């Protein structure tokens, strides 16, 4: 088994630079920006813009992700990544620096920490119980690599050069208008002596005057001149440094470099999950297949959960399911009741599953789609009625031009900007097309009639508290569309039912 990539066993998927069009509708843009944004340097977004088309690679990633849930392994990977960040930073430095031994000095540091990072990673992988194909083959690769002549020679030489340079000690004598540099000749340390003289007055805490002189990277021409003199005083270690730099120009292994970036996909996602997992919110590894009988238990909107992670408001979870020949979930019910959130949740779960990631919920079986199409109405856009309706229809037409029987549709309040008769007519037409394609679909609408349009539609309703209809529960449950019942309960609360009005109006 040869190691290929931690993201897939065989074929390396082409990375997508562009964010998928439905991202904003599903609020996945927020989610991925948050995940990838924390590790900007790795440019992780393309990984998250590229859904998988085969269940096998999804399995491969699940295995790796489960291994990464092991805190010990995650800590090892984190330690490795932090060192690799330094390697890249140090390697980039010579481009910005001017003085030759300064440049070479940082090149040496990069090599040293690289060797340390890889050796440590290899050692650490040996000590962890690994199950995934990905990590097992990586371990094998790392063992071979660290035992290779190329690597051991690099490490030994770097350490030797560093040790010799560290042993150099010199003296600078600063006078007005200049300085001298000479070898260190056992001159006694002076600060401690001064401190000792005044020790008898020491009592209680006083202000700390220890200034942290900025040890940032950089070298001015004075320091460069000093270094030049030092190289003259101690020529051997600097000659060794020259030789090292010439002999190891491209020491970074390409596979290690790729692994360092790709493993961040898992680490970043799990970090995000950890930030959300509270109040009993769960994530699970979904079964992903070609079956359109999908379901999820206690799932939720991952973007909403993240935004509310510090709030006291509990996140409401919901279930969804398409049984047998059911294909379309029609969501109706009061506004602000969580219908849009529910639609997003459905889409998010499927998309995240297609990345090989765990999804919000206790348990899930999801559909391996070839494409997700969304159409979300923006209520503030009603000003141009005719133009908008036309535009909507054009977009929907376009969707049906591209959708296949393996696509997914998520419609949210389409045609809300036309008359109800028009809306019913258009919706039924479109819905029939969706049914003809036999694709899974969520359809949020204010038109109750759609809920019972066909035996393939499932009616789900956003609910209110029975005793106080003004309070939303954000629970979306499977039941017949009952807009009337809802209106009735509001009327009862206002004492405006038939009976109540009869009673209140005295004859």
């Amino acid at each position, binding site marked *: 088994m040869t190691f290929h990539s931690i993201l897939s066993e065989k074929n390396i998927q082409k990375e997508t630079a562009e964010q998928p069009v439905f991202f904003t509708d599903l609020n996945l843009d927020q989610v991925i920006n948050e995940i990838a944004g924390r590790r900007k340097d790795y440019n992780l977004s393309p990984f998250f813009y590229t859904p998988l088309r085969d269940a096998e690679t999804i399995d491969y990633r699940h295995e790796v992700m489960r291994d990464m849930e092991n805190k010990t392994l995650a800590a090892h990977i984190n330690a490795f990544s932090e060192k690799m960040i330094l390697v890249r930073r140090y390697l980039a430095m010579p481009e910005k620096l001017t003085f030759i031994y300064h440049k070479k000095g940082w090149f040496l540091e990069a090599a040293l920490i690289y060797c340390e990072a890889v050796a440590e990673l290899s050692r650490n992988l040996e000590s962890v119980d690994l199950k995934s194909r990905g990590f097992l083959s990586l371990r094998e690769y790392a063992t071979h690599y660290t035992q290779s002549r190329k690597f051991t020679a690099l490490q030994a030489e770097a350490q030797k050069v560093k040790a010799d340079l560290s042993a150099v000690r010199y003296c600078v004598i600063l006078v007005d208008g200049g300085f001298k540099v000479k070898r260190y*000749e056992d001159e006694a340390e002076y600060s401690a002596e*001064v401190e000792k003289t005044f020790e*008898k007055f020491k009592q209680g805490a006083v202000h700390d005057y220890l200034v942290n002189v900025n040890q940032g990277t950089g070298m001015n021409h004075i320091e460069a001149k000093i270094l030049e003199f030092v190289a003259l005083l101690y020529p051997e270690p600097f000659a060794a440094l020259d030789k090292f730099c010439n002999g190891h120009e491209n020491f970074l292994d390409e596979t290690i470099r790729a692994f360092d970036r790709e493993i961040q996909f898992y680490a970043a996602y799990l970090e995000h999950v950890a930030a959300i997992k509270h109040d009993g919110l769960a994530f699970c590894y979904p079964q992903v297949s070609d079956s359109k009988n999908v379901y999820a238990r206690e799932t939720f909107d991952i973007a909403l959960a993240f935004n509310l992670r510090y709030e006291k408001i509990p996140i409401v979870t919901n279930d969804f399911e398409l049984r047998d020949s059911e294909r379309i979930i029609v969501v109706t019910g009061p506004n602000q009741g969580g219908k849009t959130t529910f639609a997003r949740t459905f889409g998010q779960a499927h998309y995240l599953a297609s990345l090989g990631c765990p999804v919000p919920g206790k348990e899930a079986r999801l559909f391996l789609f070839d494409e997700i199409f969304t159409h979300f109405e923006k209520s503030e856009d009603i000003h141009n009625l005719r133009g908008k309706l036309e535009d909507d229809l054009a977009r929907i037409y376009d969707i049906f031009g591209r959708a296949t029987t393996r696509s997914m549709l998520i419609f949210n309040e389409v045609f809300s900007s036309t008359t109800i008769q028009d809306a019913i007519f258009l919706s039924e037409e479109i819905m029939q097309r969706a049914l003809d394609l036999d694709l899974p679909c969520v359809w949020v609408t204010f038109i109750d009639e759609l809920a019972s349009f066909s035996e393939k539609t499932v009616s789900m309703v956003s609910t209110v508290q029975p005793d106080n209809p003004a309070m939303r529960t954000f629970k979306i449950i499977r039941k017949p569309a009952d807009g009337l019942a809802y209106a009735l309960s509001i009327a009862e609360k206002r004492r405006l039912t038939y009976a109540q009005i009869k009673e209140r109006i005295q004859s």
Partner: protein
Amino acid sequence: MNVFLMYRAKDFDMKQPLPSNQYELIQDLELDTLLNVMARDDKYLFDTARQVLLSSLQDVDEIRYRQDVLKDCLNFPSVIREIYNIPIESITSKHRHWLGIFTRYPSGILSGAIEMLDMFVELLKKLKRIADENIAQFESEGFKRFFAMIQRELTDEYFLEVETHLKRLRFKRGTLISVELGMGNEGTNYLLRKPNHEDLNWFQRAFTKTSPVYSFTLHPRDDHGARALGELRDKGIRLVANALGQSADHIDNFLNTLRQELAFYIGCLNLQEELEKYGEPVCIPDVFPANERKHSFVGLYDISLALTMKRKVIGNVINADEKDLVVITGANQGGKSTFLRSIGVAQLMTQCGMFAPAKSFSANIARGVFTHYKREEDSTMQSGKFDEELSRMSEIVDTITPDSLILFNESFAATNEREGSGIASQIVRALLEKRIKVFYVTHLYQLARGFYEKNEGAAIFLRAERQRSFKLVEGEPLQTSFGADLYEKIFR
């Protein structure tokens, strides 16, 4: 080096929490009058005196330690004032010459510290001279130890050592710094070094050595380079700058402590000098452990009254040893409140190691001093006067402990005599059983009478005389308080 003139083995703590009833004590005992005289318009002296006076010592030995130091102060006031002047001089110089450390750069810290230390050395030499001159004639353990420490620590050799450092740290001949190669071959571990052959001109010596020396001279207009050299120097001297800056602060603190610990005694000297003007005596009290019952004095006067009237006032002679209840009744304006106040003030003065305002005074230590005085009508009208009194009493009960001293002045009289007496009597009985010493000034005849009749020897009854001699005499409580007299006097 420790001053230790307030305690045998610790510094005085200006931040030690004061008793929760400090404001009542200050108000009821009119302590501000006393403190103002001790302070002579010096806020520092005022704050110190206030803190000391309200932080009663609880240990006979600790009190005697201070009393002994105070005796030396009273014997040699001019020496004490001369020593006190040393920290004052330091403060004045710092202000006048802008001495201090006002920068975040090692070179600035170092030069600031050197200037301060130059000044401190002169002041410490002065302190050394005073110690040399006076150690023989001072008798207290505190001063003997202090002077001996000064002599031991601040020898001529030591001053020479300090001055050598201060001279060397001006780096007239350059700054020698050792450096190692750190990450990226950047310099690290900058350490200030002492030249190997200081007696010779090492700077020249470096040339004559066989080991190579490379030198570089900045272009005169290379400002960037000059700044870089300065930064390099700062890296080299940061440790020594910290050491010297902290040393300057430590000596500054030492002088501050000296000021702090002497401030109380200076206050005592100020007070004694003022009282001497009016011919009022002071004495070093005899102190007894808290579990004993001692309270006897000759010529105990109300120091606040004397300082306000600026003349000698009447003193009292009482022997209340073995007593735990003192009930004072009698004529209005007959000196009852004055007497009660003199008891409270003398107790606080005694327990902080001061002299007492009397010809002689002895008392046992009180774990706490509490006052419960009649107050003006509550202006907020939220609670009735009697209720207000009880509420204050309840606060006292929250904090009072056995072997405390409590002074009641006309307490619980804001109701009818029978009820007031009844409640007061219950309170007092409870306090006595908790081994709390009670002084009670009252017009409540039933209360006083009740204790008088039940007295088995642990109570003493004092009366203000009708003749208004302001002197209290022992005697049984009388039914009238001579209010009619006053009425007569004023209305006729």
